[in-house]
């Protein structure tokens, strides 16, 4: 009965846990709860006993935990069961359930990787990482399957687990090492791992929202506006299929019902500013529904509201923006753009349709390669497109005459918050040495304006799975490999110098070959490599001085006018 107390303090959880599988015996009843509890921190998936796990291998780790808690507490509680104890027991169960829910929310992948929630890079990579982990005796064989997908499993720890007789010291050290994998400056952003599975989602979550969450996580639905529209459409279906439970009113209950959906979505990927703004106005619309209106009419008005919101704030706004931004493109322009903004695409297509003749140079970056689709779309439309990655920026900017950028958000101090790399492009355009400045134009709907202020890109940002950096490496780098035949030919033709050079060439080609052969990526087991951190941030902040003009559906503004327009558009 002391378990709940122990469970409530997450204290030394991991280190103790690490020791336990080896000894296997210590009170199995304390374990499960701790286990799920610790999953919130550095995920600690070690199962208490392989047998218990085997028995319930189909259920998730949390479920196992509760099951075994109950099993263990039952014999003790069998005989007396005073009311106080009953209360205590209920409390304990509640705590356990809560812990489990939390654990489930935090853990990513639990069964999801195996259940094939899509060939998502993160899941696959973490699975691969585990497979490569130092093989441990029998325990692994038993626990492998259920553990597989669990995010954050520290493979080295498993390897060390059998040796834990050495003491908790190693475990502590390893814990430290594992936490190092978070880049310190961005430590505050790692809080929540992205969900990888629909398992453990609240039962209120609508299937459409469930699907959308996974799509957003996998970047199937990507881009601020697209996510906003998709969210609103999903919420429309939620509203359509909603029935007010007895004893509450729609205005009151639908808001909480929606917030379940929103919580779920935000565990898949942090919400964008536009999503936040859209949700806020939707909630406002729900709250202002007159309780006297019949449910069907209320739902119809809400659906209408959603439709008109999408039309006004995104669809029509995009057309207006594309039209007025296209006016800024003149014959002979060379437009540089970064990644793949849908509104920039519309602008360029609109200008092309008007018969303007200009070139487009798309700068793209890893790991999302959003510019590829843009490049294809523009090229098929008949535009002149040049595509290069961000490291070619200085070359691409050389003959640029204008820079068009999309936005994730515009902050109240006029700064542009957009896909990481945008600031670099804007800076290259404005600080180009010895040339005329290139105007930087941002196309942005007012729904993306926020009253927040961004001073840097550290305080507010989003961290994506660092494994994306690993797995998205191009599979081979064949180009530029010295041809062995040519090398030998050179050696034979130039016998004096050739010998030395040829040997060099062969060695380099050998080393390249080996690196190609060994694994898909040298970083693939970065989690085990000491002194190595991977950082995959999503956004950066462009200073207002680098932005000449913000084209919105309410007209063109200097970045300093963003807060005014935001105030006006929210007051309306």
């Amino acid at each position, binding site marked *: 009965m002391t378990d709940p107390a122990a469970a409530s303090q997450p204290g030394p959880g991991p280190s103790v846990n690490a020791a336990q599988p080896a000894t296997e015996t210590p009170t199995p009843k304390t374990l499960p709860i701790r286990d799920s509890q610790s999953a919130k921190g550095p995920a600690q998936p070690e199962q208490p006993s392989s047998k218990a796990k085997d028995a319930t291998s189909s259920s998730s780790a949390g479920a196992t935990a509760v099951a075994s808690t109950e099993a263990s507490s039952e014999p003790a509680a069998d005989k007396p069961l005073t009311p106080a104890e009953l209360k205590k027991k209920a409390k304990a169960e509640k705590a356990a359930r809560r812990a489990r829910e939390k654990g489930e929310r935090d853990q990513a992948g639990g069964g999801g990787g195996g259940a094939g929630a899509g060939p998502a890079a993160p899941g696959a990579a973490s699975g691969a990482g585990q497979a490569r982990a130092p093989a441990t005796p029998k325990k692994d064989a038993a626990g492998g399957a259920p553990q597989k997908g669990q995010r954050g499993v520290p493979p080295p720890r498993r390897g060390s687990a059998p040796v834990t007789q050495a003491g908790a010291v190693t475990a502590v050290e390893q814990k430290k090492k594992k936490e190092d994998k978070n880049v310190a400056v961005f430590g505050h952003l790692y809080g929540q791992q992205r969900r990888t599975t629909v398992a453990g989602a609240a039962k209120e979550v609508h299937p459409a929202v469930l699907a959308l969450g996974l799509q957003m996580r996998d970047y199937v639905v990507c881009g601020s506006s697209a996510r906003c529209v998709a969210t609103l459409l999903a919420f429309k279906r939620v509203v359509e299929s909603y029935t007010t439970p007895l004893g509450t009113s729609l205005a009151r209950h639908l808001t909480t019902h929606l917030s379940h959906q929103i919580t779920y979505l935000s565990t898949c990927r942090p919400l964008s500013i536009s999503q936040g703004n859209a949700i806020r106005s939707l909630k406002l619309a729900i709250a202002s529904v007159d309780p006297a209106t019949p449910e069907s009419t209320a739902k119809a008005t809400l659906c209408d509201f959603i439709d008109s919101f999408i039309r006004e704030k995104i669809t029509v706004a995009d057309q207006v923006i594309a039209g007025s931004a296209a006016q*800024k493109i003149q014959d002979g322009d060379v437009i540089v753009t970064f990644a793949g903004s849908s509104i920039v695409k519309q602008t360029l297509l609109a200008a092309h349709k008007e018969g303007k003749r200009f070139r487009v140079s798309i700068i793209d970056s890893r790991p999302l390669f959003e510019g590829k689709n843009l490049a294809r779309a523009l090229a098929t439309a008949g535009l002149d497109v040049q595509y290069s990655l961000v490291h070619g920026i200085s070359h691409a900017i050389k003959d640029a005459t*204008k820079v068009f950028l999309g936005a994730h958000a515009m902050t109240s101090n006029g700064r542009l918050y957009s896909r990481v790399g945008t600031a670099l492009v804007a800076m290259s355009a404005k600080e180009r040495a010895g040339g*005329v*400045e290139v*105007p930087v*134009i941002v196309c942005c709907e007012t729904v993306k304006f926020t009253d927040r202020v961004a001073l840097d890109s550290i305080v507010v940002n989003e961290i994506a799975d660092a494994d994306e950096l690993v797995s998205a490496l191009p599979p081979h780098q064949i180009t530029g490999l010295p041809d062995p035949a040519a090398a030998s030919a050179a050696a034979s033709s130039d016998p004096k110098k050739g010998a030395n050079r040829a040997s060099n060439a062969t060695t380099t080609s050998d080393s390249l070959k080996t690196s190609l052969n060994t694994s898909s990526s040298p970083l693939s087991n970065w989690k085990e490599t000491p002194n190595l951190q991977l950082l995959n941030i999503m956004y950066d902040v462009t200073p207002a*001085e680098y932005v*000449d*003009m913000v084209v919105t559906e*309410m*007209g*063109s*503004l*200097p970045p*300093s*006018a963003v807060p*005014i*327009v935001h105030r*006006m558009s929210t007051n309306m």
Partner: protein
Amino acid sequence: MATSSDAAAADVTKPFDIVATYNELLRSDPDLTMPIAAIEALVLLLTHSASSTISETLDLLEKSTAHLKKAIPNPIGLSAGTDLFQRYLITTLQRPGQLGPAGDFKAIRTHLLSNGRLFIRRAKESRHKIAAFGRGFIRDGSTVLTNGGSRAVASLLQKAADDEGGPSAVRFRVIYVLSSTSQTLGQSSEEPEGMETVRALREKGVPVATIPESAVAYALGKADMVIVGAEGVVENGGIVSRMGTYQIGLLAKAIGKPFYVVAESHKFVRLYPLGQYDLPIEQRVIEFQSEEDIAEENKQQAAKTDANAETPIELPLCDSVDFTPPHLISALITDSGVLTPSAVSEELIKIWF
């Protein structure tokens, strides 16, 4: 409906030539700015026209505005006025009540006309307001560098000179940059723009030095501030004004002297130029020519004088303008207060939304 209103518009515009009225207004009143002349011309147009519905009025207005803009080589200044008037008209018509769409059109029309006149009167008074705001910027012993023939600047400087209590109390000096373009263009009979202001200031006892444009960088070291006028203030807080202002702005920035712009708030234009070459007017300032081209042009000119053929209106070089970006401007002294360049867009948004 559309056809009838079209016909009405055509009937009305024939006897009433808006372009001629506009030019006549500007000529008759030297104190009139371009946007105000445009508004006055539009008000006159409405008084002459016999429109009886709202849409007819708006349609007529739009057509005449387009006509006027096309006929004037540099429509930036006047477009501020026409846009403002149109905006005012629409908001008045949309307002609920007696003067709204449901109201009696006759009443609306008279209201519009009287208010239009009121607007013009107020706009003319705004120069005094500006002078009152801007007077504080000119302190004892300071030297002001200015250029062009801006009436707002002239009235500000004269007000400052008056205020100190007559000729004995004057304690500021003026360096006046005189444009040389008009002379080079062979109009040497006319004195350079701004000479009138120079004389008026000297009369008031203000020591004035006149320098050519080429001496601005040399003279700026002796000046404490730069005050210039503007033809239009654009959305990002930059200004469109007499050719040569941009370079003064650049030099003032480089030397670290404050650069103030004096402009009435009706000169705020809904325009967002990204640079010098993004203005909606055709200027032939930079012209590359070889010997051949010159010969060709001479031949053409001879032909033109014969045929008097229609050519696209171009801005004469002395009337050309440039764009001074907002980061060079320290403050804008307007009749709605002293604004930073970024506040201009706020003012514009207030008018337009």
